């Protein structure tokens, strides 16, 4: 399990005397520094100490202390434990923190999110607009003193649902009978504001091509309803003829307020919500959240539970990659036929999930200290048959059909290239990073659970183009099959829960960052507890969201028809992008 090692304590305070103060709050780790020193410190971390990968930027609103805190998690792409540091600023508008985009461009979307939800102004950010909500929305919803229209109480379980049968509908408490609220004195007829204006202004900022003909550039909106955006995602593109000169992803059309709801829920109530983040790989999401909270509670799951967890997480990876391959082929024009092959195998994996967890997609299978229930009768044999007989053969078959195909090769090879340097710079993760030649996999870089017991290769390809991203997924499926095969052979007997089942877990105060290698990349859960039954902060470092930072830079210079292919090769899931 990933715990910030004491090694960094020696390293950093000697290197930066007077700049760093250790975070001494009980249960916390890392460093607190002054915002004036941030840029200098971050530059030194990157250039001198090799922390080249900015994993996560997020904010926490410590309302009782009158402070707003920005938390940074950095890692080395060569592996090992990370470094955590925090900036604390007084909670009085305007809240300003220097932007890290100039040093770590991967912070771009994350800082925009912190501005949108917390109202922290990142000075020096090149494009600080709202990202999940629309421009003009009243307030910054993740602040602790901002209340949603259906607000009932600070924490669940809500008293309005108890005793049994007493249910007060949220609508009945709202003035409009609906999930809306307006600032005082608001007159809707005077509403003339255009929420899209800022986006179009940002799109018009690009380097003009001086040599080319003096032609008008065209602005094209793709989505949110578009067959190849994998959900309700929107891409605004500025075109010079067919060439892309600027591209902005627009998201938030599926912003379901996971984090705000998560802070009202008790810890265990969040487990089913994590299923709905990346709804193609719910078991991995469960895994990350369970790791984070177990770290806070300082417990370890039982042996058998660890093995079953790993098996389920790897099956999820296979199911997700099958879907990703099918969807990418859809985007490349092979409409639905490759998808049928992929879905055929995915259905078999979903049968296993349905057998163990009771639901095909929303498994809700992990618990703090283990898993919800043991494998049902006959399931072990089913897994064995699938992973030793059918699946390896079928994956080779799909691979044979697709990877030598002329159209796929000509549309994939050399298109949508992301260099290794850029991939690290933009904090991309998962297959996107590994297709660019960086062998970074959390399972190997900082092994969690029992991944250090298995033999598997970290898949890597070097060209960083669309074709390599496709091939990385095939290879990863094969590695996952290997891991499941080993786990099947080693699976011990025993209980699957370390604690006795309880209605509410007791989580000591502190912070924890649990990260797993999800199918789409590094999935992190930053959880802050203040000893109450509900988390004080529940943040998801969503890989597909942060991978989108690289989407614009990959596409600029490409033809407009490649946008869908690049997007398909990044493999996003909107539930996780927007959360």
């Amino acid at each position, binding site marked *: 399990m990933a715990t910030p090692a004491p090694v960094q304590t020696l390293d950093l305070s000697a290197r930066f005397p007077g700049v760093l103060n250790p975070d001494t709050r009980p249960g916390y780790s890392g460093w607190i520094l002054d915002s004036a020193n941030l840029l200098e410190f971050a530059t030194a971390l990157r250039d001198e100490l090799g922390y080249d990968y900015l994993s996560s930027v997020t904010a926490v609103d410590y309302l009782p202390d009158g402070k707003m805190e920005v938390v940074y998690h950095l890692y080395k792409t060569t592996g090992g434990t990370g470094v955590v540091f925090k900036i604390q600023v007084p909670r009085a508008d305007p809240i300003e923190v220097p932007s890290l985009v100039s040093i770590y461009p991967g912070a771009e979307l994350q800082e925009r999110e912190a501005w949108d939800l917390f109202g922290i102004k990142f000075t020096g950010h090149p494009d600080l607009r709202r990202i999940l909500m629309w421009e003009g929305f009243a307030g910054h919803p993740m602040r602790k003193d901002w209340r949603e229209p259906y607000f009932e109480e600070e924490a669940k379980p809500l008293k309005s649902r108890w005793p049994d049968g007493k249910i007060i509908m949220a609508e009945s408490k709202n003035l409009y009978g609906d999930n809306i609220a307006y600032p005082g004195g608001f007159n809707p007829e005077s509403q003339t504001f255009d929420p899209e204006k800022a986006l179009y202004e940002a799109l018009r900022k690009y380097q003009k091509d001086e040599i080319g003909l003096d032609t008008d550039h065209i602005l094209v909106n793709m989505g949110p309803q578009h067959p190849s955006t994998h959900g*309700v995602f929107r891409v605004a593109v500025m075109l010079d003829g067919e060439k892309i000169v600027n591209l902005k992803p627009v998201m*938030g*059309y*599926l912003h379901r307020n996971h984090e705000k709801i998560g802070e009202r829920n008790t810890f265990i109530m969040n487990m089913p919500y994590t299923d709905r983040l990346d709804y193609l790989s719910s078991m991995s999401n469960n895994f990350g959240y369970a790791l984070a909270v177990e770290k806070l509670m300082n417990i370890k799951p039982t042996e058998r539970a660890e093995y079953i967890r790993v098996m389920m997480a790897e099956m999820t990876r296979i199911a997700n990659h099958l879907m990703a391959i099918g969807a990418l082929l859809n985007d490349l024009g092979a409409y639905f036929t490759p998808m049928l092959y992929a879905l055929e195998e995915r259905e078999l994996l979903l049968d296993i999930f349905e057998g163990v967890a009771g639901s095909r997609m929303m498994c809700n299978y992990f618990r703090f200290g283990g898993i919800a229930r043991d494998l049902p009768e006959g399931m072990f044999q089913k897994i064995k048959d699938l992973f030793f007989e059918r699946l390896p053969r079928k994956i080779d078959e799909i691979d044979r059909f697709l990877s030598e195909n002329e159209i796929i090769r000509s549309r994939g090879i050399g298109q949508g290239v992301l260099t290794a340097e850029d991939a690290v710079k933009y904090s991309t993760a998962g297959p996107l990073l590994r297709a660019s030649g960086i062998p970074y996999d959390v399972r190997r870089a900082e092994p969690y659970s029992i991944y250090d017991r298995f033999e598997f290769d970290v898949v890597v390809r070097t060209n960083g183009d669309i074709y390599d991203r496709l091939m990385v997924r095939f290879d990863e499926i094969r590695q996952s099959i290997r891991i499941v095969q080993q786990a099947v052979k080693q699976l011990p007997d025993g209980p699957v829960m370390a604690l006795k089942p309880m209605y509410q877990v007791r989580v000591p105060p502190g912070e924890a960052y649990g990260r797993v290698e999800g199918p789409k990349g590094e999935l992190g859960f930053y959880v802050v507890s203040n000893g109450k039954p509900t988390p004080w902060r529940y943040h998801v470092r969503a890989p597909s969201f942060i991978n989108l930072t690289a989407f614009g830079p990959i596409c600029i210079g490409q033809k407009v028809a490649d946008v869908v292919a690049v997007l398909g090769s990044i493999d996003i899931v909107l539930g996780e992008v927007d959360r």
Partner: protein
Amino acid sequence: MESNELNSPDYDIPPELQAQVAITSLDKLYNWGRSASVWPLMFGLACCAIEMICAAASRFDIARFGMEIMRPSPRQSDLMIISGTVTKKMVPIIVRLYNQMPEPKYVLAMGACASGGGPFKEGYNVVSGVDKFIPVDVYVPGCPPTPQALLNGLMKIQEKIKGESIKTARWYKKGPDMAEIPVPILGPDLIDPRKIALIQHGEKN
């Protein structure tokens, strides 16, 4: 469909013609054709969309109901499957898509979120059910509903179509066309144009 299934009862057809001739009502023929060629809008919102894709794939095979032709354009589709959470940022687009669909059109709310907000109902960006904005014909419960449940919902749509009559269908009625639904506006919060008076009144209180 069997040839005698289309027949209206009480008409004697000579035995030698029974396989070739059917005597039926216009309604029955019209609804038979419509119900077996419902084209859904290719439009996925969230988790439920994945189960919708699974329903279209080989195991569940939506093509058995004549619904496999998913149209990416609302102008060519008959059925809108609201497959997922409807957010405030998305609802103007959904209403616009609905307005762009030609009559006859049907709406199926798939899953808890589309039907009533589901687990995310309390969220500040979530609309508690798409039926606050557009009329819904069939609700399918579940989170997400399994493909079987979706297929059951689609069969309910077919049942509904079979019960309609060409004489009373709203899209052949004279008079003003089906009024377009006013598209919500994004302001400090979501503004439904039909509620402007209420919002103004509400502020005076």
